[in-house]
């Protein structure tokens, strides 16, 4: 019996071209979690992330004959995920939503189950909020770097931009996160009445 790990992506894509669903299943097992988590981290919406991950694998099936099997598959999947997330976010921004709905969306816990919510500490809430406030380009770089553990070169290849651009976006994203977290800490200190005691 051949283990899934032993079979290369290229071989699975070749089998997928022959419309073998088992091959799609193997690729799904291998990459679905990464694709889904990337989409959740970018969109902050579980349901949307599921749709994006579905569309990503549908495209994999649809474009199986056009994928270059000499290249690794993961960057292709990440690229599709980022593009689909971008499309969803830009459509959402164009949509007219009421202020109340917007406030609800921003205040609600975006992607956590109720039992997990209790385990959240304050820092994670702040970091999550700060990441969600980043510009799309910076957020994508942060997600690919910290969640998917990709190098700057790999991110540059996925986003089809120079390494210097990725480096710059990551730098400014971290600066923004640091500033926002500092602000949040200061607000908390004021709220608890121990600001300036040190």
């Amino acid at each position, binding site marked *: 019996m051949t283990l899934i790990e032993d079979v290369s992506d290229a071989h699975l894509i070749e089998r997928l071209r022959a419309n073998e669903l088992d091959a799609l299943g193997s690729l799904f097992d291998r990459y*679905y979690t990464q694709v889904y988590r990337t989409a959740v981290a970018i969109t902050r919406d579980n349901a949307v992330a599921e749709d994006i991950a579905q569309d990503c694998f549908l495209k994999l099936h649809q474009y199986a004959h056009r994928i270059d099997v000499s290249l690794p598959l993961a960057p292709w999947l990440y690229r599709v995920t980022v593009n689909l997330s971008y499309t969803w976010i830009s459509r959402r921004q164009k949509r007219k939503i009421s202020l109340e709905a917007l406030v609800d969306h921003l205040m609600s816990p*975006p992607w956590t189950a109720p039992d997990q919510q209790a385990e959240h500490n304050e820092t*994670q809430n702040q970091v999550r909020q700060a990441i969600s406030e980043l510009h799309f380009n910076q957020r994508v770089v942060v997600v690919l770097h910290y969640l998917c553990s990709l190098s700057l070169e790999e991110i540059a290849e996925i986003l089809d931009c120079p390494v210097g651009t990725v480096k710059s976006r990551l730098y400014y994203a971290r600066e923004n996160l640091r500033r926002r977290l500092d602000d949040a800490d200061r607000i908390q200190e004021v709220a608890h009445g121990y600001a300036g005691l040190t």
Partner: protein
Amino acid sequence: MQDLLDKHLDEDISRTLKFETTLTPKQKAAAWERLQARVQEQTQLPPLEEPCQPELVRFRWLERITAFRVGSTKLLHTLVMDSAAFERAGTPKSLFPCHYYDIHGRWTHLSIIAMSA
């Protein structure tokens, strides 16, 4: 100190993102069921045609080689066989005021104009 703060920030970002994006096996199984159903409704796109045919490439190379060969021959002929350029260069212009360059670029005597006219 700054490095330590940076490290803490990196850890916080990484931990938050990883914690917040968990996927249960149940969710994954449901997603696979849904995907299977949708895939069966969809057809695969055919492969893209090659943008450049091999015959065309060979033809272009042949064309370039031919152009280079013809150009080299012309240059060699001009330099070795055609002495007009050397004659022009070697002749002091002040000694032959009645000579001029004709429409072919050759050093010609004025009387030829008179004859042709």
